[in-house]
C-alpha cells in the first residue's frame, strides 16, 4: 500500500482542498438561508425552499450542466466575469469547489435550519433585555446554541463534497492535478485496462478518509455537547 504515489497524494490533497473550500464558502450562505427559512415568513418562501433543495433531487449531471451554462467561460455570468475581471472557474479546482458547494448546500441548510428551530427564542429575547443588540445576540446566544447543527451541516457538506462526481465532471471536466478529485481518479482507473489495482488503492484511501472525517466530527460533537452542558 505504502508509499502513496504522487498522483495519489495529488488526488487526496485536491479532494480535501475542494471539500474544505466548498464547505467554508457555502457556510455563511447556508447560515443565512437557514435563518431566513426558520425565522422569517415572506412571499415566495416555498419557492426559495424548493430552489435550495433542487440539488438534492436533480441528477448531479444536470446541476453540473447548469453551472457550465452559467459559469463556463462562455456562460451567462462566466463570460462577464472573464471579460470584466479576468476570472474564470471553468476547468479549475475552484470550479470543482463551487460544484461541491452547490451539491452540499441543501444538506447544510437543512441541518442548520433544524437546530435553529429548536432554539428557544425566549433566550434571545432575554439577551436583548440584558443590553445585547441583535447581532451580538446572534453571535453569543444563537450561534453557540446551533453549533451542533452547524457541525452536522459541515460534516454532511464535507462528505457530499468528497463523494461528488457528476456535477464536477460535467462542469470542470477531469483534469489531473486540477479537477481530478478522488472519485474522478477512481473512475478514470476503472476506464483503463489494468487499472484495477490502482482503483482498489484509491478505494482504500477513500474509506480511510471517510472514517477519519467521522472520527473527527464525533470528537467535535462530544466537545460541543460538553460545552452546551447537555
Amino acid at each position, binding site marked *: 500500500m505504502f508509499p502513496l504515489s504522487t498522483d495519489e497524494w495529488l488526488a487526496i490533497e485536491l479532494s480535501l482542498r475542494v471539500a474544505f473550500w466548498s464547505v467554508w464558502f457555502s457556510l455563511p450562505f447556508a447560515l443565512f438561508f437557514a435563518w431566513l427559512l426558520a425565522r422569517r415568513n415572506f412571499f415566495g418562501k416555498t419557492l426559495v425552499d424548493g430552489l435550495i433543495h433542487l440539488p438534492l433531487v436533480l441528477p448531479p449531471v444536470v446541476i453540473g450542466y447548469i453551472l457550465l451554462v452559467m459559469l463556463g467561460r462562455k456562460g451567462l455570468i462566466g463570460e462577464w466575469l472573464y471579460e470584466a475581471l479576468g476570472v474564470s472557474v471553468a476547468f479549475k479546482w475552484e470550479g470543482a469547489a463551487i460544484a461541491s458547494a452547490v451539491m452540499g448546500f441543501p444538506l447544510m441548510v437543512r441541518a442548520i435550519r433544524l437546530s435553529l428551530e429548536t432554539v428557544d427564542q425566549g*433566550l434571545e429575547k432575554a439577551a436583548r*433585555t440584558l*443590553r445585547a443588540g441583535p447581532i451580538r445576540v446572534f453571535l453569543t446566544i444563537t450561534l*453557540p446554541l446551533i453549533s451542533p447543527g452547524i457541525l452536522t451541516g459541515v460534516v454532511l457538506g464535507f462528505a457530499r463534497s468528497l463523494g461528488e462526481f457528476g456535477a464536477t465532471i460535467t462542469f470542470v471536466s477531469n483534469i489531473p492535478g486540477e479537477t481530478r478529485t478522488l472519485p474522478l481518479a477512481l473512475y478514470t482507473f476503472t476506464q483503463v485496462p489494468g487499472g484495477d489495482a490502482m482503483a482498489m488503492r484509491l478505494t482504500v484511501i477513500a474509506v480511510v478518509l471517510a472514517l477519519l472525517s467521522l472520527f473527527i466530527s464525533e470528537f467535535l460533537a462530544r466537545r460541543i455537547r460538553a460545552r452546551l452542558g447537555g
Partner: protein
Amino acid sequence: MLEVKIKGAIDQFEIDATFMTEAGTLTALFGRSGAGKTTIINMIAGLVKPRDGRIAIDNDVLFDSAHAIDQPPNKRGVGYIFQDNLLFPHLTVKGNLCYGQNLTPTADRYLDFDEMVELLGLKHLLSRRPSSLSGGEKKRVAVGRALLANPRALLMDEPLAGLDMARKDEILPFIEQIRQQVRLPIVYVSHDIDDVLRLSDQIALIDKGRTVLVGPAETVANHAEARLLLGQNNPSTIVSGTVISHDTTFGLTSLETQAGLIRVPGLKLPPGSPLRLRLNARNISIALSKPQDISVLNVLPGVIESIEKIDTSTVDVKIRLATQLTIDARITTLAHQNLNLAIGTSVFALIKSVAVDRF
C-alpha cells in the same frame, strides 16, 4: 419613576394599561391567568410593541407613539426576570451573571458583582451549568443576571410560580431585600394574592388586558372589583400595621393596625416593622355587648354599615370600626335574626388571634 400608559391589541385582547411606579416601590400587576399581565411587561421591556401610548423612566422616554420613539430592548435598561428563567444553557452561572454586566458602560454600573453574588448566595455555584441547578437556584441566578445588567427598572414575571413552599421561602426574602437595597421601580406580575400582599406597595388590578384599579395594596385588595376577581367564597379584609411590642410570657405580638390594636401569636419582627394582616370574614364573630368570659383576644367596637345576604344560611355584615375602617364578618342568618342586627346597630367584632393571616 416608571410611567406606563399603553394600548395595543394582542390576540383576542385589547391591552389598556396605565400606572406609575416610584423608585423603591413594587407594583404588582394582579389578575387571573391570561389577563394580559405578561403582555404588559413585555411591552415595557420592548419585546412587544404597543399600538400607542407612552412609557418612560424618569425623563427617558422608552416609547412614545406620538413622537415615533420606540427604543429597542437593549437600549431600555429594563431588567426582566422571566417566569421560566431563560438562563443561557451554554454559559456557566458566572457567564450568565456577567452577560449583562459586561455590556453595561462602566459609568452606569451601580451594582458590584461580588456583593450581588454574596447577597444571592451564588458563590459556590459560579462554575456550574444552569442545567445542574435546582429550581430555587435557577431563579436566584435569573434575579442576579437581570440586576447585574444594572437596570433602571425591574420586571418580574411570576417569579414564585411553579416553586413549592420551601423554594418560595428561599426566594421571597431576596425579593424583599432587593426592593429595599436596590431602589428601583419594580413591576411584579402575579396571580397569587398572598405573594402580592407580602411584597407589593401598590397593586394594579388587571382584567382582560385593562388596569381596572390602581392604588395602595390594601385599598385595591379590599375593593369590590378585586374581591370579584378573587371569588366571593372567602371574603376578607386586608389591613396594614406595625409591630408595637412583644409579650414574652405568652409569646404574643401587639400590632397597631388600621383596624385598631390587634394581638397575634408571636412574630419574629422588631418593633416598628410594617406588615399586613388578613382578617378573614369567616373568622370574625359579632357580639352586641363586650364579652367577658371569652378566649378571643381582639375585641373591636364598631357600627354595622350594611348587611348582605349571601345564601339562605349566611350573611355578610360590614362593620365600620372606630378607626373608620370597614371589615367584613360572615355569620349565619340565624345569628343575624337572634341578635336582631340592623344597619346602625353598635356591635363588637371578635377576631381570633390565631386565625389572623400575616404577610
